[in-house]
């Protein structure tokens, strides 16, 4: 009898804790690279560590910048920005948060050996004004400072010193960093355990300064590399949320009771870059016909994006004429206009340019980077052939593809750009349209250079007045649009799938923010 009572009591306790314990089991295609927030630039790893660590300012579910560890900021002079820090914040290890933590963390992130350095350009020093005030000293006016800061997480100074980890991790040296497998942040969740490539467990941090909008007590994150297995794990009830969910399984998932797809157009714009150098990499004519604007327009007219959306993207992509998504600052309706699909016009333009028989060139695509990248290119090769071109399709794994893109060993090539973490049109201007040199033009197609675009880009970089900056940015983007160094295709869809009991907002940047997730009964 007594034993029976005891067992009932135990059962009751389990039931009681079970009611309040909300565990979210979450699967992604791969594991985080490590937990040190200043050691990797990978956006998936960063959003995972964002559950543990926090930046001074953060993006909310609508991708607007809002205060996090800083409560307010003001530009004192163009190169000095003052941040007031939040009072009473405690790290998960119990340490108090203060100005010295901000100083150590930001300088750690911009250390010459840190790969994150490029994500916070122009920071020279951090000066401590008092315990809860810091000044950021910049090389020049930095209109996007807050956007950059959303990606730089704050660690505790004492904790870093204690574990001999103030210097950033350097993969070329032989030492393993303490911060790779251990974490101590101010965020909504703290690390309970980590088994690389098997299971990461986060639990609710009771001492979080913010009012939780989530109701999770525990997050179990499992990487599942195989698409089929990840979907099977969702369908069998072993997992509550998967990201990404393969597009071809969308109908099956929506047709199964208890689970559903989450699909929205994302930020990532897919486009084709066009080699405008003096020679084609793999051509059959003298010189480079792609230098002729008429030929590029012919190419534009030859591609039927509506068909690609309906047949290859299952109606889920957003066809666009713009290089940036509507959510990104700088977008206007006018940018979204496309040259209409018209294969006859394509042929006519080609003939006018002097290539009535067309010409051969390489069409380079990755096959494991973007949603259905290979399928899009196969369709596009057929369309270009109908429009009078002779494309030679090359599809390769991403490592091979981007190596060729870097070395300009491509004629017409696929690239996707999400403007992360800036969420600003300046990202496209500086990395993809400006004439290469210094920190500009890393991906600008070979041979493309428009002095007016360059002039505007450099002006945008330092313009603090938001209205002027926006106007210049839009002018530059429209100028580049008419030149067609990039042929825009679409914004690719986000594709997650979840159990019906999981409520989570799907932000356009494709990052899973579980501190907004709820489990309902």
């Amino acid at each position, binding site marked *: 009898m007594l034993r029976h009572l005891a067992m009932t009591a135990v059962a009751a306790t389990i039931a009681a804790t079970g009611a309040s314990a909300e565990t979210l089991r979450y699967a992604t295609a791969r594991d985080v690279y490590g937990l040190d927030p200043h050691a990797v630039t990978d956006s998936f790893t960063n959003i995972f560590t964002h559950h543990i660590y926090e930046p001074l300012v953060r993006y909310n579910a609508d991708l607007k910048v809002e205060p996090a560890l800083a409560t307010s900021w003001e530009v004192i002079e163009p190169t000095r920005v003052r941040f007031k820090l939040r009072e009473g914040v405690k790290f998960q290890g119990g340490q108090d948060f203060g100005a010295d933590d901000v100083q150590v963390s930001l300088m750690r992130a911009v250390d010459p050996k840190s790969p994150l350095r490029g994500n916070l350009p122009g920071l020279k020093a951090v000066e401590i004004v008092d315990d809860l005030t810091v000044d950021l000293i910049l090389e020049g006016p930095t209109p996007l400072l807050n956007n950059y800061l959303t990606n730089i997480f704050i660690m505790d100074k004492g904790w870093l010193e204690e574990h001999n980890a103030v210097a950033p991790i350097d*993969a*070329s040296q032989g030492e393993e960093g303490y911060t790779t497998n251990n974490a101590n942040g101010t965020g909504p969740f703290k690390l309970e355990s980590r088994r690389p490539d098997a299971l990461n467990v986060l639990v609710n941090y009771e001492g979080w300064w913010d009012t939780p909008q989530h109701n999770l007590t525990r997050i179990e994150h*499992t990487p599942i*590399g195989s698409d089929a297995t990840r979907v099977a*794990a969702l369908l*069998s*009830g072993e997992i509550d949320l998967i990201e990404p969910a393969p597009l071809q399984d969308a109908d099956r998932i929506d047709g199964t009771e208890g689970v559903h797809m989450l699909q929205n157009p994302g930020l990532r714009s897919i486009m084709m870059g066009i080699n405008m150098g003096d020679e084609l990499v793999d051509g059959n004519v003298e010189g480079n016909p792609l230098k002729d604007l008429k030929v590029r327009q012919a190419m534009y007219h030859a591609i039927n994006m509506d068909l690609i959306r309906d047949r290859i993207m299952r109606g889920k992509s957003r066809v666009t004429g713009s290089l940036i998504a509507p959510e990104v600052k700088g977008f206007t309706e006018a940018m979204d206009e496309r040259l209409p699909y018209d294969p006859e016009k394509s042929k006519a333009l080609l003939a006018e340019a002097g290539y009535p028989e067309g010409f051969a060139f390489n069409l380079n695509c990755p096959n494991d980077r973007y949603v259905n990248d290979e399928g899009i290119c196969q369709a596009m090769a057929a369309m270009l052939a109908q429009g009078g071109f002779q494309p030679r399709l090359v599809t390769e794994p991403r*490592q091979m593809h981007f190596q060729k893109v870097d070395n300009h060993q491509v004629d017409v090539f696929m690239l996707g*750009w999400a403007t992360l973490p800036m969420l600003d049109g300046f990202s496209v201007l500086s990395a993809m349209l400006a004439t290469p040199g*210094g920190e500009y033009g890393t991906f600008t197609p070979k041979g493309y250079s428009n002095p007016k675009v360059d002039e505007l880009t450099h002006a945008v970089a330092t313009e603090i007045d938001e209205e002027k900056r926006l106007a210049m940015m839009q002018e530059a983007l429209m100028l580049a649009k008419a030149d067609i160094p990039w042929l825009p295709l679409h914004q690719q869809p986000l594709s997650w799938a979840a159990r019906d009991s999981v409520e989570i907002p799907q932000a356009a940047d494709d990052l899973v923010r579980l501190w907004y997730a709820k489990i309902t009964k």
Partner: protein
Amino acid sequence: MLGFLIRRIIQSIFVMLAVALIAFMMFRFMGDPVNSLVAENATVEERDAVRERLGLDQPLWVQYGRFVARAATGDFGLSWRNARPVSTLLAERFPATAELVLVAAGLSLLLGIPLGILTALRPHSFSTQTLQFFSLIGISLPTFVTGILLILVFSVWLGWLPSFGRGTVVDIGWWSTGFLTLSGLKALVLPSVMLCLFQLTLIMRLVRAEMMEVLRTDYIKFARARGLTNRSIHFRHALKNTLIPVITIFGLQLGGLIAFAIVTETVFQWPGMGALFIQAVSFGDVPVMAAYLVLVSLIFVVINTTVDLLYAVLDPRLRVDGARAAH
């Protein structure tokens, strides 16, 4: 015996050096690992700085020489993907692969040999015909298809077994084992079945063919004439002679199991060395790839040496020379 072992050790060193060299020659065709290491928006200078720090701007033979020199001291460097020592990563993953391969190999022997004997002794029975039919399926279906089918049936439809992972594991020192918990054992079922299927059918068909061959030989007829029991003839006389080729094939296939484990581990998200290797390939993580390939070549050499030693135990004729030399 000692001379044989020393020869083998020297050979294996050369095998590993050659494997590492071939690996380094192939890495050049794998694309540029720097792309995985820098931010999408990194500038050309940042890319070049990373390339220089990792020594990727050096010629191939310098990179190879550096790897060999460090590997000789047991230092395989740091993984570029997650900045952890490669030796730690491999040691962490080894138990998962070892347990999976062990169970799969065990299953294929424990089921393959009896089934082979059964089908040899009753060549025309219905059960033999059925087994032969299914073994054909096992030998011809690609393993990843079997894996996905197993997941569909036993995880999604029936909900009996987990579709991924190792379940709960227990750490004994540095070895993490799934043998000690129910969820760990359940998680082992589907992957080991998938992995052993090909091996199992191969062994079954091999034992059957060998056994039928042996049963026709003169000494079996003589044994029957001596009036020995069937049991003694089949298991004492026939089976022993059947097993020599089985051991050769099994030894060769054991290496194959470790290699095939890459596919199984990918399908079932089994956190073993194969999964580590696949990730390293997609990331361009040269230190991990090089170390894995060297380690696998070492395992192959060890297995083949063991098989050669086992022959001597099973086949007395191979011992004759050694025995004479001893006298």
